[in-house]
C-alpha cells in the first residue's frame, strides 16, 4: 500500500531504477536503485558529496526531470511533471527582480486556476506566508534590497503559498554565511512545525542534516545511490554540542568518508 493509513497527505514514495544523462562519451549513470518511502509530515535530509545525484533526485521529485526509469508517488498517485502540490526552494533564491516581496510570493499562485482560490483568499495567504517567514515589514521591497537570508525567506514563502503537501529544498542555505545559516535552520524547523508539510532537504552539510532531520538519507556517488538511512530521534530543539548529536554526526561522517563503514542508528 502506498497510501498512508493515517489519511494525512504528503506521503512520498520514490522508486527510481535508473536515471542517466547524455555525456560526451555515452550515457552517464546518475542514479541507480533508489527506493525511499517518506511519511506525511516527515523531515528527511539527504546528504552526500557533490556528484552523488542528490540534486537530481530532488529535481525528479519536483518534476523538473521527467526522463528516468521508475516513478515517484505522492499519496499513492504517480507524479507526472511539476505541480503545486510540491513547493521548491533552490540554492539560489531565483526571485524575480522586477517584483516586490509581496508579488514574488504571489508568483507562487500564478499558475493556480482562477476558480481554485478567490482573490481575497489569495491575498490573505500571501500575507500569511510573508508573516510566517518574518518579512511583514519588507512586503514592498525589491529583491536587490534584501540580504541573502531574507531572499531565501521570500523563496520559502513563495514555495509554501500554494499550500503544497511536500516542501523540497535543494541546499537552500548553502550560500548563506554560517550565522545566517544556523538562524535559517531554526526558522525552517519553526515553519515546518507550523505547516506540518513533508520536507525533503538536500544538503552537503552533515551537521545541518542531523540538526533538522527525522531521518538522514546518506547517498554515495558513481552511480548515485542510497548508502544508508539513519533515523535521528533526538528531541528538538537539538543541541549541536550534545554528546549524542556529535556521535550521530560522526557516524554519518564515517559513513561518507570511511570505505565500507556502517553507521549505527541512534536510539
Amino acid at each position, binding site marked *: 500500500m502506498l497510501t498512508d493509513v493515517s489519511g494525512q497527505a504528503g506521503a512520498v514514495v520514490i522508486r527510481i531504477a535508473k536515471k542517466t544523462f547524455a555525456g560526451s562519451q555515452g550515457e552517464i549513470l546518475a542514479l541507480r536503485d533508489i527506493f525511499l518511502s517518506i511519511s506525511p509530515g516527515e523531515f528527511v535530509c539527504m546528504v552526500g558529496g557533490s556528484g552523488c545525484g542528490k540534486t537530481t533526485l530532488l529535481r525528479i521529485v519536483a518534476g523538473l526531470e521527467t526522463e528516468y526509469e521508475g516513478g515517484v508517488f505522492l499519496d499513492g498517485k504517480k507524479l507526472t511533471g*511539476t505541480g503545486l502540490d510540491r513547493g521548491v526552494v533552490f540554492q539560489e533564491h531565483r526571485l*524575480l*527582480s*522586477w517584483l516586490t516581496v509581496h508579488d514574488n510570493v504571489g*508568483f*507562487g499562485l500564478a*499558475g*493556480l486556476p482562477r476558480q481554485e482560490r478567490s482573490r481575497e483568499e489569495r491575498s490573505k495567504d500571501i500575507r500569511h506566508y510573508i508573516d510566517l517567514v518574518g518579512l511583514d515589514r519588507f512586503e514592498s521591497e525589491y529583491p*536587490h534590497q534584501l540580504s541573502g537570508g531574507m531572499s531565501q525567506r521570500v523563496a520559502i514563502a513563495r514555495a509554501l503559498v*500554494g499550500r503544497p503537501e511536500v516542501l523540497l529544498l535543494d541546499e537552500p542555505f548553502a550560500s548563506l554565511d554560517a550565522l545566517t545559516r544556523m538562524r535559517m535552520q531554526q526558522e525552517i524547523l519553526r515553519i515546518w512545525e507550523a505547516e506540518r508539510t513533508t520536507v525533503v532537504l538536500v544538503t552537503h552539510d552533515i551537521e545541518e542534516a542531523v540538526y533538522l532531520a527525522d531521518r538522514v538519507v546518506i547517498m554515495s556517488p558513481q552511480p548515485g545511490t542510497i548508502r544508508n538511512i539513519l533515523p535521528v530521534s533526538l528531541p528538538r530543539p537539538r543541541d549541536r554540542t550534545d554528546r549524542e548529536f556529535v556521535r550521530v554526526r560522526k557516524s554519518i561522517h564515517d559513513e561518507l568518508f570511511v570505505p565500507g563503514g556502517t553507521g549505527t542508528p541512534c536510539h
Partner: protein
Amino acid sequence: MSTAEQNQRLIWKEASAELTPKAPDNIRRIHIPDRLLGWIIPASVLLVWELLARLGMLPSNWLPAPTVVGRTIYELAVAGDLLKHAGTTTARVAVGFLLGAGAGTVLGGLTGYLPMARKLFDPSLQALRSVPSIAWIPLFLLWLGIQETSKITLIALGAFFPVYLNLSVAILHVDAKLLEVGKLYRLSSFQMVRRLILPAVLPEYIVGLRSGLGLAWMFVVAAELLGASSGIGYLMVDGEMTGRASIILASVILFATLGKATDWMMSAVGRKLLGHRAR
C-alpha cells in the same frame, strides 16, 4: 562589508594619510562641480570661435559665428520654416521608426521564442544585416520613387535591426533558472511570456529601441539629403546650394536637438518601466 574589512580599511587609510604630504591650508583650491567640468571645453570653443569670427579671422561664408547660427535658427522659427521642416522630418522618423521597430518586435519575438522561427528567419535576416543599409538607397529609389515611401522604408530598415537583434537575443538568453520557476508553478505558455519573459527582456528591448531610434535619425538625414522638398535635410541641401553655411549649421543643430530630445523621451519611458530594478 564585514567589520574586519572595515578595520583593515581604516588602518590603510591612516597609514596612507601619514605617507601623503598634506596640502597647506592656506592654498585655496578652486572647486568646480563635476557636472560643470564637461562644459568647459565646448564653452571655450564657442567663445574662441565667436571671437575669431568677429575679428574677421574666419571666412563668414564658411564658418559663421555661433551668434549668426543662432540668429538663423531664430529667423527660421519666426518665418515658420523651422516648425514645418522639423515637423516633416520628425513625422518621417516617427512613421519609419514605428514600422521598423514594430517589425523588429514581431520577428525578434518570434525568433527568440520559437526555435523553428529562429532557424527559418534568422540566417536570412543576418545576411541582410551585413549589407550596409545605405547601400539599398538606389534600389529603393528605383522601386519606390523619390517620394515618401522610399524614405520611410529606409528609416524603417534602420530601426528594424537593433530592435530585432536585441529582442531576439534577449529572449534566447532569459535565465533558464527563472523559466524553471515558471514551470514549477505551472504557468501557461501565455503566462510564461507575459509574467516572465517580457519583464525579463525589457531592459535589453529598451536598449534596442533606443539604438533603433538613433539609426532612424541617421537614416532620415541620408534620405532627405538624397532628394526632398521639405525636412531638415532639405534645409541643409538648400543651404549648400545657396552657399549659406549658417543654414547648414542650424540644420545640424536641429538634427542633434531633435535626436537627443526623442532619445531622452525614450530613456525616460524606459526608466519609468524599469522602475525599481537593480542595476
